[in-house]
């Protein structure tokens, strides 16, 4: 299936791309990595930050399942389906909050390997993390 070309917001992840990457920033002075990219460093307040493409794989640091339809500005499908949400730890970089492609609590566990994917979001696309293939228990 061909995915839409337009991301849910510009500057969040590289797209279209064979292997999409989240676009974060790294502080030149203290090394802190943030996502999304920021114009200053939240750790040391330096303005010397540079864009950095983040790693595509990591481990699930925490997770939950969103089981009710959020209020506006939520713009998901009319028919609400529960979805997974988690923080994925990208080693040596940062923990990124994201939708998960899995919403079944029996298939989610802290520490499981995850990888970045781009998924349809209406007529656009957004980023999410999926269990890394072959690693799923």
């Amino acid at each position: 299936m061909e995915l839409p070309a337009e991301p849910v917001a510009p500057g969040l992840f590289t797209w279209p791309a064979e292997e999409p990457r989240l676009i974060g920033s790294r502080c030149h002075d203290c090394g802190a990595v943030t996502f999304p990219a920021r114009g200053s460093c939240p750790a040391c307040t330096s303005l010397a930050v540079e864009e950095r493409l983040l790693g595509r794989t990591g481990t699930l640091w925490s997770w939950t399942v969103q089981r009710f339809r959020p209020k506006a500005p939520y713009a998901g499908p009319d028919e609400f389906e529960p979805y997974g949400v988690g923080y994925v730890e990208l080693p040596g970089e940062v923990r990124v909050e994201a939708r998960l492609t899995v919403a079944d609590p029996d298939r989610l566990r802290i520490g499981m390997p995850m990888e970045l994917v781009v998924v349809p979001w209406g007529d656009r696309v957004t980023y999410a993390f999926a269990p890394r293939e072959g690693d799923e228990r």
Partner: protein
Amino acid sequence: MTAPEVAIVGIGLHPFGRHDGVPARAMGVAAVRAALADAGVEWRDVDFAFGGSRDGGNADALVTDFGLTGLPFVNVRNGCATGGSALVAADTTIRAGAGRLGVVVGFDKHAPGAFGSDPAAYGLGSWYGETGLMVTTQFFALKIQRYLHDHGITPAALARVAARAFRNGAANPNAWRRRPLTEAEIGAAPMVADPLTRYMFCSPGEGAVALVVAPGDEARRWCERPVFLRSAAVRTRRYGSFEVFSPSLAAERADSPTVDAARAAFAAAGIGPDDVGVAQLQDTDAGAEIMHLAECGLCKDGEQEEWLARGVTDIGGALPVNTDGGCLANGEPIGASGLRQVYEVVAQLQGRAGDRQIPGDPRVGFTHVYGAPGISACTVLSR
């Protein structure tokens, strides 16, 4: 011995819950009138006021109902720390000698259901809300999920917290949820955000609280048994703390604003967590109370499950927590919530908490709120 500098000499509260047809400001008016009556003072005696409401209108507009005396009345808008921040401002005013008798008021009335939040108001892109990541309940679930994992606590502890909250709420005539629920009922309720079920979350609600504050050395003029505000502190998040509405978190954890605010409050009071005889802690969800117990320094990480099993935090336990039923049984009208905690501690320390009165003549109380986007306010109170 000289008296502590600031005292609470009157308390007033409009019952929490749902009050169809009653505007938030009418609840605010009722709470202020009750607090003034409790202190035995008139509105014309009040030198200054601080107050706030998220959805209920301007606090300073309450003067229309009391009389236009020209007093300085400052509106405070600081999320879940609105009440705490108003109290900090009143505390500072008295310590500075800039005012003598003050009123602090918080009131609110929210639409049913979880709060909706505007990403732009928090400096976030609209995508964050559109894609369903900007939901406070999600954050609390993600935080407790990790905490349970790190400290080997089971979901049974979450049900115990909620059951105690509803038990205490049943004994509090001003609470919203007054029906006790068993741990089994709570655990078997529909899941809202794993591992938290419907009865493990508080709901946005309605209510109002007001306090009359005065210089400590004059307190007995207005109150036979004054409770002293030994300290009040507000802190915001630091880099690395795990906060609501965070698209990313630093890989290395830092202390939360709760840890910072609690430490600052205890240090300023010269009173330690071990001295606390009653505590009201932010329980947006059952997990939040568990984590805040440790973050405030009242117990060690991982100790909570055993504490709960032994009833340490029950009325009658060594450290009663959320004796009025907390947010779980009272709901969360944001402007009023933090001041409800102070109201409850004052009532407990004065021995007039009715059916929920804790035994043993407590002398020191503690309050704590937490909210978006990573803010906490704590107070230490004593007789």
